[in-house]
């Protein structure tokens, strides 16, 4: 940026952060977590602060808002809001600024809303605080605020409680509350990370409209380069507490200057990256025997309620799903939260009760006792989503990786140590780290430990349940590479459960799309991604943010509805979609009406 435009920028800037340095008190003395961060935000502009976990992007926003935890403090710098330094304000003055001139929305809208107050009461409270309105005037304003965020049935929502709303609707309420003070600046900290991709698209579109209509300046903090590409005017990339690069969005994606940004962008899985590439489908070869055969798998849970804890509602998690998984292939199971994809994974290892038929390596596992299930478990292993939660924090990682071998009486003593060391090397970890505990490892390393644990029994099938979605993109790419390598070497089959279409495109041979407990489309990856038949698949693909601002779509029509719920009354009989053959093992349930 030249000196003159820099000058012009400073004058237009509504929020001007100068040389912000924040430190945190640790047992080893104070440690700088934000180092000399400067950026400007102009009216009607969206500035994306992008970075991986630990980059300091959230701490930056908390420093601006004066919401740092007691152990942290701003050491030096200025935060100028329309020329006034916020850092010199006292708590009382800062309260007026928060929710007034600057509003903030957070990642998890459920925890940010008060669960025992109606949506209307919370909105009225925010409006009363900033406009001094009371009674019916405040209620009218609350209704307007809900209409402004395009909330369906806004009148009814006023008297509902947060738990009665879906995640997307809650985030709309949060935005309505944030906007009720007519803020000049809206800070959004990962506002769509907890939402499904179709809902994310709606919320992002809403934020864009609000920026256009009200001229609000938006500071959007995100780890998702796809969201950056869709939303940003300018981008600030942070790493290790410092800004490594600051550019207009087009330039950043076209010519990233800093090596970290380059690496980050390279690691981002791009939807459409495999366009035109054919896959060799195992399913297409007539003589192949499936390693996992699922027939009419149905999983329903009763929800108990009332005084006698009788069943009152039923969750139709999975309805008559049939699937085959062939040796050496990766079958992706995609869909949004609540579609039943994880339930299928858990059914395969008998973690939950189910009906239907599942054959693993030709052997039926329906009704098997845990003793008879034991040899089958050796063939099929699960890798969980959250590597932080899936490892017992009190055991050493060596014990954890060796545990399956002990349980299945496959090794002990020196042989056990050797096998565990071998597994560590296999997943790219140093066996010398065996005596450490899980919390001493990073997220990516922990997921490698989980994979080593799953590999220890020499399985033929690995179910990866959202196994890379909790990881930063650069780490995600490494773990995906590891999975690829293992498949090539050991001939593993993966059932890859994921909500992330871009990752799925990268790794899978075949894709099955799930909606409300049923498969609505299944076929080779290239067919499903390039020629999706079912409207839900099309919608899902269309909603994925593309990490390329040159391909930004401004004209897309977004559905406004919410994903229907799988919870039904006890006498509900679901209609089962019949799959139509589109040739080349590509099937879709296009006669089904329920998808819209």
């Amino acid at each position, binding site marked *: 940026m030249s000196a003159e435009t820099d000058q012009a920028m400073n004058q237009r800037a509504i929020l001007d952060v100068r040389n912000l340095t924040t430190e945190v008190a640790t047992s080893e003395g104070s440690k700088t977590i934000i180092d000399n961060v400067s950026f400007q935000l102009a009216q009607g502009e969206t500035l994306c602060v992008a970075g991986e976990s630990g980059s300091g992007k959230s701490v930056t926003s908390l420093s601006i808002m004066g919401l740092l935890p007691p152990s942290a403090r701003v050491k030096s710098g200025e935060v100028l809001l329309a020329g006034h330094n916020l850092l010199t304000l006292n708590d009382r003055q800062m309260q007026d600024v928060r929710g007034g001139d600057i509003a903030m929305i957070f990642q998890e809208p459920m925890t940010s809303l008060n669960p025992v107050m109606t949506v209307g009461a919370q909105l009225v409270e925010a409006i009363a605080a900033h406009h001094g309105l009371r009674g019916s005037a405040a209620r009218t304003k609350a209704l307007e605020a809900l209409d402004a965020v395009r909330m369906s049935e806004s009148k009814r929502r006023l008297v509902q409680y947060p738990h009665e709303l879906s995640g997307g609707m809650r985030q709309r309420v949060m935005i309505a509350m944030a906007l009720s003070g007519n803020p000049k600046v809206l800070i959004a900290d990962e506002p769509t990370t907890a939402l499904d991709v179709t809902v994310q698209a709606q919320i992002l579109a809403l934020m864009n409209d609000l920026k256009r209509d009200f001229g609000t300046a938006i500071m959007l903090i995100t780890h998702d380069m796809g969201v950056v590409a869709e939303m940003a005017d300018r981008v600030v990339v942070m790493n290790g507490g410092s800004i490594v690069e600051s550019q207009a969005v087009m330039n950043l994606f076209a010519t990233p200057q800093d090596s970290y940004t380059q690496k980050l962008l390279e690691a981002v899985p791009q939807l459409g990256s495999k366009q035109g590439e054919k896959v060799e489908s195992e399913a297409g070869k007539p003589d192949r025997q499936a390693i996992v055969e699922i027939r009419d798998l149905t999983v329903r849970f009763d929800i108990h309620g009332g005084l006698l804890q009788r069943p009152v509602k039923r969750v139709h998690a999975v309805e008559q799903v049939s699937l085959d998984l062939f040796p050496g292939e990766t079958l992706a199971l995609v869909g949004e939260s609540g579609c039943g994809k994880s339930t299928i994974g858990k059914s395969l*290892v008998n973690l939950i009760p189910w009906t239907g038929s599942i054959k693993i390596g030709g052997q039926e596992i329906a009704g098997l006792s845990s003793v008879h299930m034991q040899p089958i478990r050796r063939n099929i292993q699960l890798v*969980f989503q959250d590597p932080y939660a899936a490892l017992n924090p009190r055991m050493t990682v060596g014990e954890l990786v060796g*545990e399956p071998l002990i*349980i299945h009486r496959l090794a002990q003593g020196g042989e056990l140590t050797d096998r565990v060391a071998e597994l560590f090397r296999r997943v790219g970890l140093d066996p010398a780290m065996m005596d450490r505990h899980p*919390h001493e490892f990073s997220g990516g390393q922990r997921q490698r430990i989980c994979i080593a*644990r799953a590999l220890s029994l020499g399985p033929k099938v690995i179910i990866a349940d959202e196994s890379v979605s909790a990881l930063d993109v650069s780490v995600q790419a490494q773990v995906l590479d590891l999975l690829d390598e293992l498949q090539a070497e050991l001939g593993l089959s993966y059932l890859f459960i994921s909500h992330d279409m871009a990752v799925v495109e990268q790794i899978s041979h075949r894709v099955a799309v799930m909606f409300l407990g049923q498969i609505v489309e299944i076929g080779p990856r290239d067919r499903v991604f390039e020629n999706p038949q079912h409207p839900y698949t099309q919608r899902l693909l269309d909603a994925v943010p593309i990490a390329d601002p040159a391909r930004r779509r401004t004209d897309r029509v977004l559905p406004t509805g919410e994903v229907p719920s799988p919870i039904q009354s006890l006498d509900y009989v679901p209609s089962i979609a019949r799959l139509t053959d589109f040739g080349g093992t590509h099937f879709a349930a296009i006669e089904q009406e329920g998808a819209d």
Partner: protein
Amino acid sequence: MTILGKLIRRKLSLFGLLVISVTVLAALSADWITRYAPDYQPFEGLTLEGAPLPPNGQFWLGTDTLGRDLFSRLVYGAQTSLIIGVVANGVSLLIGSLVGIVAGFMRGAVGAILMRFTDLMMAFPALLLAIVLSAIFKPNLWIVAMVIAMVNWVQVARIMYSETVSLAERDFIEAERSIGASRIRILLRHIAPHLLSSIVVFGTLGISTTVLLEATLSYLGVGVQPPTPSWGNIVFENQSYFESAPWLVFFPGFAIVTLALAFNLVGDALREILDPTLKGRH
């Protein structure tokens, strides 16, 4: 030992540790540090009018209405209070943990029956239950300890139950099930170690509750029976002389409060030190 080191480094828990050590040492060496047996009535223990003596060079904390040395009674009373504190609390911890962990792990019918029984016990006023039990069994040191245990295990059971339930739903337990770990293995290797810190904390915090309950029972006359001294029954025996001889109530009362406070301070510090959420994630 790092836990002890951490306890010593905190001022409040160091104070608690000191009080507890002094009390334990005094109780252990009671025969050597006291001048009189707790039930000995020396001739010079009362004024000529028969009134108790205030603290002086010979009777450090004064004498009680029977002319017995209050210091000796307090030191021997510490034995009673500590035995009850440790034994009663240990037994209630054992019963409570067993019931809570089994109910939380088994769930289903077994869990429901155990926890409804716990609720039933909880619904009884603790003091009333203790009085009834003491009335049935003639109270002595061990009976009082058991009565207190019968009353106190309920709290432990409830907490152990809810902790076990939430542990059993953690991802890593599901991960264990998916590799084929048996239920016993999951319980012993993966759930029990996580409960250990709660059990240790309860072991200390519970002692103060127990000491106080013993004092209450003794005060009501259904605790440890005279002439065996306990801190509670010293207060009970002397309460009507509160105005003329305030030291008779003040010293044992002070001892009860200080020891209970000490165990609370140590228990709270232990809870912070052992809290896995403070050290588990970075």
